[in-house]
């Protein structure tokens, strides 16, 4: 029950603005530490791959961003559902602040995937199943963002884009499996380089650290974006006036 009370308080825009403001420096600091450790371990400590040499090291960026691209979409759709069902303004703010961050992760996954593809496949772009899925995911993100930007009324924009995000999340697995199936149909069973069935511990540890770092990075940026969004949304409230006068 106390957790419930905490969330209830947290969901009030003013409390959120305050608590989030206090949390951001901590999140940012931990993100920075984990990123440095993860990159150091990944780029310098982990041994080179016996097949791919040094070029495989891009997975320490590519794999966490691909994970994040899906994770952020889930967060966005869940927050949108919470906002629509229980009419919680803050949930909509979280959902819509997540969209551009998720799109950036997706874009990063695509760019690193294509950079990796050049030495691996000899081409910048190959219609690999996972890269294609990632590309479609980027389209889904862009759709949500474009719809959100298209409405002048913030409340309508949040809810309409939220519905689209939920429709998208139902489609993500369908799209993923249809693309996988399509890929095997047209190219035969390709060697999926993104699978690492017997990954060495010295590679796995930096990968996990990088994933946690990316998640915390997302949390930090999300809180920052959501904070400004809340400030704009509540600009008519008294506490915003007081806050702006202080600064």
């Amino acid at each position, binding site marked *: 029950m106390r957790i419930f009370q905490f969330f209830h308080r947290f969901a009030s825009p003013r409390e959120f603005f305050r608590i989030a403001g206090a949390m951001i420096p901590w999140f940012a600091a931990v993100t920075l530490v984990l990123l440095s450790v993860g990159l150091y371990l990944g780029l310098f400590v982990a041994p080179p791959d016996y097949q791919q040499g040094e070029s495989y090291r891009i997975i320490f960026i590519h794999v966490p961003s691909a994970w994040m691209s899906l994770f952020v979409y889930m967060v966005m759709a869940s927050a949108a559902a919470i906002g629509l069902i229980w009419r919680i303004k803050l949930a909509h703010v979280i959902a819509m602040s997540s969209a551009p961050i998720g799109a950036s992760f997706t874009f990063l996954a695509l760019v690193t995937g294509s950079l990796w593809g050049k030495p691996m496949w000899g081409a910048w772009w190959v219609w690999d199943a996972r890269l294609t899925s990632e590309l479609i995911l980027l389209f889904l993100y862009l759709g949500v963002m474009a719809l959100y930007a298209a409405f002048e009324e913030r409340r309508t924009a949040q809810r309409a884009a939220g*519905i689209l995000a939920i429709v998208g999340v139902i489609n993500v697995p369908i799209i993923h499996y249809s693309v996988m199936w399509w890929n095997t149909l047209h190219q035969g069973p390709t060697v999926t380089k993104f699978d690492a069935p017997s990954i060495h511990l010295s590679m796995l540890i930096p990968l996990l650290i990088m994933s946690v770092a990316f998640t915390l990075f997302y949390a930090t940026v999300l809180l920052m974006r959501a904070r400004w969004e809340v400030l704009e949304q509540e600009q008519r409230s008294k506490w915003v006036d007081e806050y702006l006068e202080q600064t």
Partner: protein
Amino acid sequence: MEGSTNSALTAFTTIFRRDIKLALRHRSELINPLAFFVIVVSLFPLGLSTDSRTLLQIAPAVLWISALLATMLSLESIFRSDYDDGSLEQLVLSEHPLSVIVLGKVAAHWCTTGLLLTLISPALAISLAFPPQNLGVLIWTLLLGTPTLSLIGSIGVALTVGLRRGGILLALLILPLYIPILIFGASAVDMSIDDLDVAGQLYLLAALLALSLTLAPFATSAALRVTLE
């Protein structure tokens, strides 16, 4: 309970018949998606080659993508005129479940676009050197696939109907969601040319239709209530 089922059915048929009647009074608009379908398909031999082997190779994709785009361009008609003349707010305020009304409208839309596209597709397929004995598969995929296109499309239109320039945005929202249908539809047609078994794809298309039939009307109604505010 029976009474409300009955009245929901009345609402469905009333809206369905109204929209069919309206479509029939706009013959030219009824023809437009079909004309688009025909023109786009005929662009490929002009732009590519008239070699029948090349044409046969691209035929499944060309037919499916053209049908998909023709459907997409006709989607606006589901809600646009109702929005403009105020009928849509009357439907939203109706005592009947909005999802039933939406289903009636989508059914009418499919009958006036997807169904007609399916009916003329054999003629276009033949022009792309498509073997006549495989036309059945093409028709089946379109019959199972185009209703799903209308259903998913209705969500997109409901989300963008309140915007002055929703056209391109609609394409951005809807096309990614169309990809699975395109993959299964086109590949079934493609594999049928090589006399492979395509039952799997047909089942998957049917499954997608069942899924969108149950979920899309609710998403569309929710979207309408939001965008009509």
